[in-house]
């Protein structure tokens, strides 16, 4: 399985541990990542650029995908937001007229978007391509006793039509399935597909913090030892702003947030340090000792 | 508090239009509705609103003639003239209020063809015209800060010295009954589709205003004229708009034939609804149906047109039947849809009871006579909603308000409490289901002396059994169990008048088609039927039809 790697902006900025852990687990999982194929790619716009100019956003995303198509490679993402924005662009580009209009612009760079291979998040690739049997065979360390709350990130679950949930029904529960495959226990809680508040953290911090506080504290109260998320933007908000959210709620939360590749890495037998799991604001020390892993 | 110049019961198109008129005239106005105004059944009207715009060369008299012919000559011609002449002005007013009517290439109001019309004069908003109009009228009442008794239910009209002086109504949220005094009361409560099963109508269409007026001594006119819409979805009866046929859809039998060629060679699928429904029923009865239905075929219209102009139909077809109208025809059958009959009013919306007015489906002016043309109902609501308000305003300036009658309120409270207190009785739904089945088979697309008699006997026995129904909910707050029981009584009263009208009209005309008396009898029956309650006795009489310039002719499509 070879993919054009689209790391997104944040995994090269505020969440470098995500980039590192992705590379590490891909080797073991047999996922070949071409890191050069998308060197000329741009940010997906994250829905923010699209607010200002939808056509511009779709064109940039079509360009990213066309760059990968030129190399005959499908794109692999590691961020719910990147994935969601690209899936939405692919959905809109199913319209022939719109596609032709955008291809006119791309032609100026010698590129063409066909949409022949849809972009996928590494979480989906694990669940859909690798599958339960093959994955479990690679697991070296069962994470028994780990009580994990899933937090998908809006862009990986909505709109379900653009994300092809009706066809790929596994996507609806992929994070919970993965949790079980690594031997951990899923802590179900009502906010697992809700919003982390990241999009409004610079605009309306109070509301954003309430979201962080609500979801992390609910999961904690239901017994979660950690929360796992496929989105570094969610990670940013849930991890870096958790203390502030806790202070606002006048309670302790202290729920470590880990990335999907870090969870997979632990299960595949990698060292926590390799996965840079110590590089979080909310400490993972206690978590690791609970599952008998030295930090 | 609880005292107004004008009280309007019912917040559908007719009610809201009347309210706007009254508010703009500076009158102390209130609207009362058992549901939030935008939930009123006007929202379900799909196809469009008719109007002859004379500045484009259309002829309102042609519209009037089509309407009168459509009514099988039972409509009062002066009323029809008024409606068709005022249509254009009313339509433009609606557009000025913001309705997003469809446009032609020049940006002017666009049209589609509709049943029984010689030219395209139906103005529309996709397939959601009723909803679009209702929401706009509601927005205008918001703009005017209109007072709304939202989720209140009228249990009785207050009649003093033979005049209507207000209502007794229950606040559904608290269960408390209040007297609401008004110098004029306008009933705009819509139809009574739940008397039948199936029906295209909402669960709230229970003939409340009809029963209230009837029990207050007003006459109900032409109650046997019940419209069966040709294209109701089999099973739950949800409406598929005539707009589909207006855009060119076909009706096919099991042989794939456009059978309307045999019944209406000129108008085909766009003949008047009673003609089409009967045609469908004959095809079904003679073995050319499919599971009791015929097929509505929109495939040749193409996906783009369906999406732009029939979007809501596509939604209904895919969501409720899993059918894509661009790929497959959809089974439909004649389904009870509208009552041409109603509270008798004059051309200004006045009923037999002074101080009591009526407009919209619950009223019978009569503009629809024996059969209503599609897209004329939306017009009717707007034109006569406005006119009834004007009449109500005039009346209100001539009378004083009444003093509060506590006794009447106490009696009514006791009566309601007695219903709540009953136990171990039959469930309301049992009676309603029996009524629905009996009325549909007794007073259906085709009827005869025997079927009408069976229906009537059933209704009479249900009226008896009603006295021993009981409800589960003994509480006060949001007691829909109680509301449903009160609605049942209204429905039974109205159903009886339908049976009485049907048994007495000894001819076939419009929607009232008797297989034992198949001919139209202008000599004896160019008349309106009336059912009225005098001293508790049900009485029947007739009155002449108003003819101005169009002599009755044989109706051919």
């Amino acid at each position, binding site marked *: 399985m070879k993919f054009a790697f689209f790391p997104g*902006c944040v995994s090269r900025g505020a969440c470098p541990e995500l980039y590192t852990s992705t590379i590490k687990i891909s080797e073991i999982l047999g996922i070949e990542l071409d890191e050069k194929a998308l060197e000329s790619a741009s940010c997906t716009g994250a829905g923010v650029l699209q607010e200002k100019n939808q056509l511009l956003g779709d064109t940039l995303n079509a360009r990213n995908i066309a760059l990968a198509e030129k190399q005959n490679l499908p794109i692999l993402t590691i961020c719910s937001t990147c994935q969601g924005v690209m899936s939405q662009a692919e959905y809109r580009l199913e319209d022939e007229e719109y596609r032709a209009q955008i291809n006119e*612009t791309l032609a100026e760079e010698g590129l063409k978007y066909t949409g022949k291979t849809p972009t996928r998040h590494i979480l989906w690739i694990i669940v859909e391509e690798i599958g339960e049997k093959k994955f479990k065979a690679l697991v070296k360390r069962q994470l028994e006793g780990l009580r994990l709350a899933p937090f998908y990130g809006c862009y990986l679950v909505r709109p379900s039509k653009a994300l092809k949930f009706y066809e790929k029904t596994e996507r609806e529960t992929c994070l919970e399935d993965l949790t079980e495959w690594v031997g951990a226990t899923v802590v179900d809680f009502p906010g697992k597909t809700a*919003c982390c508040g990241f999009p*409004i953290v610079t*605009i309306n911090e109070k509301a954003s913090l309430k979201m962080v506080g609500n979801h992390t504290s609910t999961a904690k109260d239901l017994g979660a030892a950690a929360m796992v998320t496929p989105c570094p933007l969610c990670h940013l908000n849930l991890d870096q702003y958790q203390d502030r959210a806790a202070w606002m709620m006048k309670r302790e939360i202290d729920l470590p947030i880990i990335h999907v590749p870090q969870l997979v890495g632990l299960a595949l037998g990698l060292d926590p340090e390799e996965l840079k799991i110590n590089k979080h604001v909310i400490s993972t020390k206690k978590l690791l000792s609970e599952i008998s892993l030295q930090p | 508090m609880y005292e107004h110049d004008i009280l309007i019961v019912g917040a559908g198109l007719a009610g809201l239009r009347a309210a706007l008129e009254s508010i703009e005239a500076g009158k102390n106005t209130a609207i009362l509705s058992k549901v939030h105004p935008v939930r009123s059944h006007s929202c379900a009207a799909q196809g469009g609103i008719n109007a002859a715009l004379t500045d484009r060369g259309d002829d309102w008299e042609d519209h009037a003639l089509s309407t009168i012919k459509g009514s099988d000559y039972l409509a009062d011609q002066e009323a029809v003239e008024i409606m068709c002449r005022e249509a254009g002005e009313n339509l433009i007013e609606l557009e000025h209020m913001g309705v*997003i009517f*469809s446009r032609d290439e020049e940006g002017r109001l666009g049209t589609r063809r509709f049943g029984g019309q010689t030219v395209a004069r139906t103005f529309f908003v996709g397939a959601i015209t009723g909803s679009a109009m209702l929401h706009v009228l509601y927005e205008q009442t918001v703009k005017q800060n209109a007072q709304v008794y939202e989720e209140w239910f009228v249990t009785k009209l207050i009649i003093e010295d033979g005049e209507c002086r207000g209502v007794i109504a229950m606040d559904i949220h608290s269960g408390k009954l209040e007297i609401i005094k008004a110098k004029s009361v306008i009933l705009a409560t819509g139809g009574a589709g739940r008397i039948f099963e199936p029906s295209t109508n909402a669960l709230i269409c229970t003939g409340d205003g009809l029963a209230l007026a009837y029990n207050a001594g007003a006459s109900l006119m032409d109650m046997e004229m019940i419209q069966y819409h040709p294209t109701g979805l089999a099973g739950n009866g949800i409406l598929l708009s005539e707009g589909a046929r207006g855009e060119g859809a076909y009706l096919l039998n099991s042989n794939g034939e456009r059978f309307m060629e045999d019944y209406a060679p000129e108008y085909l699928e766009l003949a008047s609804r009673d003609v089409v429904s009967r045609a469908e029923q004959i095809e079904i009865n003679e073995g050319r149906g499919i599971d009791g239905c015929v097929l509505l075929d929109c495939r040749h219209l193409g996906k783009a047109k369906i999406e732009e102009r029939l979007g809501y139909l596509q939604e209904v077809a895919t969501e409720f039947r899993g059918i894509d109208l661009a790929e497959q025809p959809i089974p439909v059958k004649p389904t009870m849809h509208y009552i041409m009959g109603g509270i008798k009013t004059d051309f200004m919306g006045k009923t037999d009871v002074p101080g009591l007015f009526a407009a919209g489906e619950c009223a019978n002016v009569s503009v629809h006579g024996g059969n209503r043309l599609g897209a004329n109902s939306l017009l009717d609501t707007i034109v006569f909603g406005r006119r009834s308000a004007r009449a109500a305003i005039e009346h209100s300036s001539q009378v004083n308000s009444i003093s509060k009658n506590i006794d009447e309120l106490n009696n009514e409270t006791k009566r309601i409490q007695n219903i709540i207190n009953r136990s171990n009785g039959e469930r309301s739904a049992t009676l309603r289901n029996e009524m629905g089945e009996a009325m549909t088979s007794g007073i259906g697309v085709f009827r005869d002396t025997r079927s009408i008699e069976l229906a009537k006997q059933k209704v009479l026995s249900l009226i008896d059994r009603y006295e021993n129904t009981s409800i589960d909910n003994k509480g006060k707050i949001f007691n829909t169990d109680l509301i449903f029981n009160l609605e049942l009584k209204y429905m039974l009263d109205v159903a009886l008048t339908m049976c009485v009208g049907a048994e007495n009209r000894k001819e076939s005309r419009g929607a009232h088609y008797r297989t034992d008396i198949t001919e139209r009898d202008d000599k004896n029956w160019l008349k309106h039927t009336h059912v009225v309650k005098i001293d508790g006795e049900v009485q029947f009489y007739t009155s002449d039809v108003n003819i101005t310039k169009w002599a009755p002719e044989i109706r051919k499509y």
Partner: protein
Amino acid sequence: MVQTAKKTIQIEIKRQDPEINNGESYNQVYYVGVEDWFTVLDALIKIREEIDGTLSLRCACRASICGSCAMRVNGQAKLVCKTKLSVVEKNNKVLIEPVGNMPVISDLASDFKPFWDKFNAVDPYIKPEGEVPDGEYLAPNDDMVHLVGVMNCIMCGACVSDCTVLEVKDNFLGPAALAKSYRFIADPRDGSQFERLQDLEKDGGIWDCTRCMQCIEVCPKGVNPMERIMSIRSKSMENKIDNNYGARHAKSFTDLIKSNGIVNEVLLLLKTKGLFNIIELIKILPIAIGAQLAGKRPPFFSHSSKNKDEIKKIFKKLEDKE
């Protein structure tokens, strides 16, 4: 009509009666015989008519046009008259609750007053300008057809029920009211576009939306409220009503992609808040320090796309287009 039921479903309903136990909510389970084609509403009506008449709920048209019957089914807002039971039941069980973000009057009938108050707050009626023509206002059909999409809104409240911002900020106007605003902003006959946009910039307006797409997901009529909010944001910025963090954020984001291809979080933050906005920057400082200590502070001079020129070209071509 007596129908022989095909199977039995367990329907659990969250109930509440103000006259019992001070309105404390409780769950009640009903076992209902249903047919294959039953919608959730069919089952609820059956409960009401045959089993328990005390169940309060609102329903009218049964045809997804009146908007009365929005409820939460298995935690998600739906119009129950068009929700097939077979699609939502899991192991023959369904959970039904009243819509979220609104107080409850009784059982499944919620108090829509907050909903209607917000609707009223956006001046939801057309405000034409200038002389009133004798005939109709002229308007292109494309504009009217575009508005049908948003006019399809039946005010059912599903979007408001599941809005994640309304859960934490109750003065947010919400998706329904904002979509309704859009309907007037996009109507060529309305003359008050600028005033409406100015109004919507205020607290509780368009910039509170967190783009979680819940409203798009649950809307039973394809109104796409979030996209309408985005369109209003777009129009606001076009009209230079952009002196707020939301617009600055959007502009900064766009500028960073234009100049660098990739977004640098530090620069984004500084540009959004403003380099000289000392108070705001001081507030962020603890977060920045925390990030620094964890080794997560993004570099000031970050990665950029390899082929920035091509990206700039696209921006130049499309930036002022829409």
